[in-house]
């Protein structure tokens, strides 16, 4: 039952990514050239709803989740002050890929479902990149 609900939430998310055209390379170019409010509106309004939702969840913390354990809203990893490089550099690397192919992890999966073979190729590369990172993480600045 719980897995059915997770699948349902994912379905709504994937549907929204394609229907809002957030999965489109054209919209990504428009966004990074600051030529349209559309993508900023999606991320901005998602954030507003997310902030309100997190506030509500903080008020409910301690109550049971549907799965049982009490609601706990994640807090910041205190190591960020010394490990800020990983967030900035890792984010920038990911951003480079997003800007070129117009796909982020969420839309890679959504366009895979829409039958776009190019998204499958990007996904294979992303799994390889994950391996490359974890296998070499000790050697790069964090």
């Amino acid at each position, binding site marked *: 039952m*719980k897995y059915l609900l*997770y*699948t349902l939430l*994912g*379905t*709504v*998310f*994937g*549907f*929204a*990514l*394609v*229907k809002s055209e957030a999965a*489109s390379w*054209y919209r990504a*170019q*428009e966004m*990074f*050239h600051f*030529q349209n409010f*559309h993508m900023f509106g*999606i*991320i901005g*309004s*998602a954030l507003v709803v*997310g902030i309100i939702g*997190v506030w509500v*969840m903080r008020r*409910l913390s301690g109550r049971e*989740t549907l799965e049982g*354990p009490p*609601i706990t*809203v994640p807090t910041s*990893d205190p190591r960020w002050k010394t490990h800020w490089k990983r*967030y900035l550099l890792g*984010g*920038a*690397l*990911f*951003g*480079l890929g*997003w*800007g070129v192919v117009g796909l982020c*992890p*969420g839309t890679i*999966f*959504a*366009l895979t*479902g*829409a039958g*776009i073979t190019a998204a499958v*190729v*990007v996904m*294979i*590369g*992303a*799994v390889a*990149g*994950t*391996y490359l990172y974890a296998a070499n993480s000790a050697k790069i600045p964090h």
Partner: protein
Amino acid sequence: MDHLFNLLSSPWPWYVAGPVIGMMVPLLLFMGNRFFGASKNFEHFCAIALPEKVAQCSQRSGYNWRDYKWSLFFVAGIVLGGALAGWVFTNPEPIKLTAAAQALIQSYGIQQGTEYAPAALYSLSPRNIVLLLLSGVVIGFGTRYANGCTSGHCISGVAMMLPESIIAAIGIFGGGVIAAWLIVPLLF
């Protein structure tokens, strides 16, 4: 019924899609303290494909993909949602770009149709396969390095006001702007 079908098929404005996406953050917390994000699934795929090399797929101590079954169901849902949007409730019209964006893509010599991306980039020519694979590697490496992507950092983490997510969001948009202005023009 026709009305509902048309409503689901037509493109969603930002003020519908954004709140729907934002609702994922509290709903997943409410379900079972799950953190809304997509990129960690690459670790799970890697660990499932290479069971002997789990340590090279995730640097987390005690990592086991079986602890993330919820996430695999969530990602199966994303694929299913993409399939419904792409095959059943297909938008028959080309994406309506702003005049400025139209001028930009015309300067690249792209004729826009109803596709998600120009064929010059997504058709599976040898050059494009290399380009798509390389971009994928950078996306996978970068999201694991930063420990999150657009969903995990820009939406979940920033909604929780996590400083590390704000730093990551700055990096992500910086990288995207550099790619769109300096790399993409070289591809066409």
